[in-house]
């Protein structure tokens, strides 16, 4: 059975992996394999090129030879017999038999009459096309030639052959050029590949060490990304941005941890003092009872913070989408207004349900109730006596927009995003009862519902007021419930 390795082991394991990669060296790098591949392609291209050159040269040479043969034949056959014999003898002993490998005059039954070809070349058709074949001129070895046979007027057959020696030379030259070119190119490619691989390996090594340091706990460490000119740099840049985000989140959580510790410590310290004093008091029941009551109230404050934190965590775990159904937002608003009216009244705050249209959303009814309740709760809590809180729901731009506006001090622009985030407590909320995490809860529920939450000034007097809008994806009748 496979089990996930413990975290410590995983870090250790990766460290070893890093070393192993370094250990295999240059030849194991992708860069080197890439270079080898390129060198292979280069070699193939060179071969192809040489083959093309050779083929082209050969065809040209053959064409030229054939042309010369034809001309020569025309010239020779036009001459008188004694002249022809003389010419043949001359040609046969010619220094130029590099070019003209053979010439011979045969009678109709292929008996040699003159020239340096002892035998009639086998398969050669008189008056046929130029053919390539092997001849054995007197005093020479077998030669590959282009040959032509012409029937003279008296029935004799004249054979003319031109050697292809220069063709062999061309072949040799091309082959030599190929070798001269291919060997250094390949060597250069391999060497260059090795050098590039070495460089890449150095960079990867630096990155591995940086990653090892990060895993060892140094979260400020970053990978060397340079100016992000190549893919490795860009990858390092991406990793760095991810690290920035992680570090930010960790800082946030750490800050939250400190805040929560502080929030719990203060009331707990008070509880402790009160209990201690209660113990030392003579058992006058009233005083002791009063102190215990206050201690319990402080503990309740602690509980409310812990409960809210657990609640946010629970909602953010997102298991609750199962309970999603079509919910009439306006009904919720009416119910919650009814629930909070006496509180608003007691604080002389006008709680108004205004501009309510029936809008349906897809969501968890209980959570949406909690969202609306927390928004109103928050608004009432921060609105001074004699102020007003207005709530409404309506459809706008394809969304169900819930708005809560109050005439309180508002939320500073810098804090607006943060108050909806996880576990954010504004300093202001430290002095009012409750967990101070109401808007964090609203944010968590909103995120679960894909809602867009915006905070703005309400533009009311005397304070700037606060306008919070929650835009929920609207529920159309046409869409079937999944």
């Amino acid at each position, binding site marked *: 059975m496979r089990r996930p390795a413990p975290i410590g082991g995983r870090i250790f394991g990766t460290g070893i992996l890093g070393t192993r990669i370094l250990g295999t060296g240059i030849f194991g790098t992708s860069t080197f394999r890439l270079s080898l591949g390129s060198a292979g392609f280069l070699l193939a291209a060179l071969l192809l090129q040489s083959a093309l050159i050779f083929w082209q040269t050969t065809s040209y040479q053959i064409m030229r030879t054939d042309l010369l043969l034809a001309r020569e034949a025309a010239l020779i056959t036009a001459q008188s017999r004694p002249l022809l014999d003389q010419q043949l003898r001359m040609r046969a002993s010619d220094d130029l038999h590099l070019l003209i490998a053979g010439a011979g005059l045969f009678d109709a039954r292929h008996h040699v009459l003159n020239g340096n070809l002892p035998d009639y070349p086998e398969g050669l058709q008189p008056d046929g096309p130029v053919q390539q074949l092997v001849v054995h001129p007197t005093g020479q070895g077998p030669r590959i030639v282009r040959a032509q046979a012409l029937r003279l007027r008296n029935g004799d057959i004249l054979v003319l052959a031109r050697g292809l020696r220069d063709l062999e030379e061309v072949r040799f030259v091309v082959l030599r050029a190929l070798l001269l070119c291919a060997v250094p190119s390949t060597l250069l490619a391999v060497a260059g590949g090795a050098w590039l691989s070495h460089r890449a390996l150095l960079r990867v090594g630096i990155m591995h060490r940086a990653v090892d340091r990060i895993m060892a706990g140094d979260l400020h460490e970053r990978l060397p990304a340079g100016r992000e000119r190549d893919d490795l740099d860009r990858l390092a840049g991406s990793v760095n941005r991810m690290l920035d985000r992680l570090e930010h989140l960790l800082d946030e959580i750490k800050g939250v941890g400190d805040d929560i510790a502080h929030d719990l410590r203060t009331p707990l310290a008070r509880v402790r003092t009160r209990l201690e004093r209660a113990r030392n008091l003579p058992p006058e029941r009233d005083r002791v009872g009063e102190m215990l*009551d206050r201690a*319990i109230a402080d503990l309740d404050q602690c*509980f*409310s913070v812990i*409960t*809210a934190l*657990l*609640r946010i965590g*629970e909602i953010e775990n997102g*298991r*609750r989408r*199962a*309970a999603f159904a079509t919910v009439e937002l306006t009904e919720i608003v009416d*119910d919650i207004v*009814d*629930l*909070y009216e*006496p*509180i608003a009244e*007691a604080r002389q705050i006008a709680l108004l349900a205004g501009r309510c249209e029936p809008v349906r959303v897809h969501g968890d009814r*209980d959570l949406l*109730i*909690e969202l609306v*309740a*927390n928004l109103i*709760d*928050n608004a*009432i*809590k921060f609105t001074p006596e004699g102020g007003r809180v207005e709530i409404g729901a309506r459809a706008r731009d394809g969304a169900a927009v819930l708005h809560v506006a109050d005439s309180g001090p508002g939320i500073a622009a810098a804090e607006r995003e943060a108050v909806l985030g996880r576990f954010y407590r504004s300093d202001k909320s430290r002095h009012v*009862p*409750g*967990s101070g995490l*109401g808007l964090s809860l609203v944010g968590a529920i909103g995120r679960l519902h894909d809602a867009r939450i915006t905070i703005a000034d309400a533009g009311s007097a005397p304070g700037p007021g606060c306008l919070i809008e929650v835009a929920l994806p609207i529920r159309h009748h046409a869409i079937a419930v999944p």
Partner: protein
Amino acid sequence: MIASTKIIPDMPPAALPRVLLIEDDAKIAADVAEELSLRGFAVTVAETGTQGLESATIAAFDVMVVDRLLPGLDGLALIEQLRRQGDRTPVLVLSALSAVDDRVGGLKAGGDDYLTKPFAMEELAARLEALLRRPIETRESVLRAGPLVLDLIERSVRRDERAIELLPREFRLLEYLVRRPDRVLTRDMLLEDVWHYRFIPQTNLVDVHIGKLRRKVDAPGETPLIHSIRGAGFMLRTTG
């Protein structure tokens, strides 16, 4: 120190309501048992699901408190098993999780109420009391509690001869109280049962609602009917 017993034959006197507490955390079990004993319950403790099922099968209890997560037999499975056996003893499910899904699961399995840890002992006691003494259900359209008379059809309230004007939500709240006279009703119970909300309000919502109702029900000079119970909740007192 603990007034509970695991020995079935030593059943407590029948006058005290008998509670079977099935909880694997020995410390919590001891604390809860002690507290409930002080509040007049006779408590029997079982530490595992199997043991609990055995106790519940052998002896009759008035109410049970069952932890959601138990070694051996899971809390919900235990309740389902009991219900299959035809045992209708009211059950309160305890859980460390506050997920509503969990609560729904607990109630579906046959639990009658649900409480999440940590909880105040008053809350547990009040809920057990509520499970033991079902609300007054009457076919009559008029409810009476002490000097209060509620006409459920006309939605009108009288205290002796004095007519009391109530808003619909105040009437609902008073009806809930009148059906459960002389019992401690916690804030959470009121919010859950009267308004059907499960969230924990950040403000003293319920106190404000009760306060408004009290000012209408208990006029100056009259014997107060609606009482605050310190650390627990409220009570409609009709006796003494």
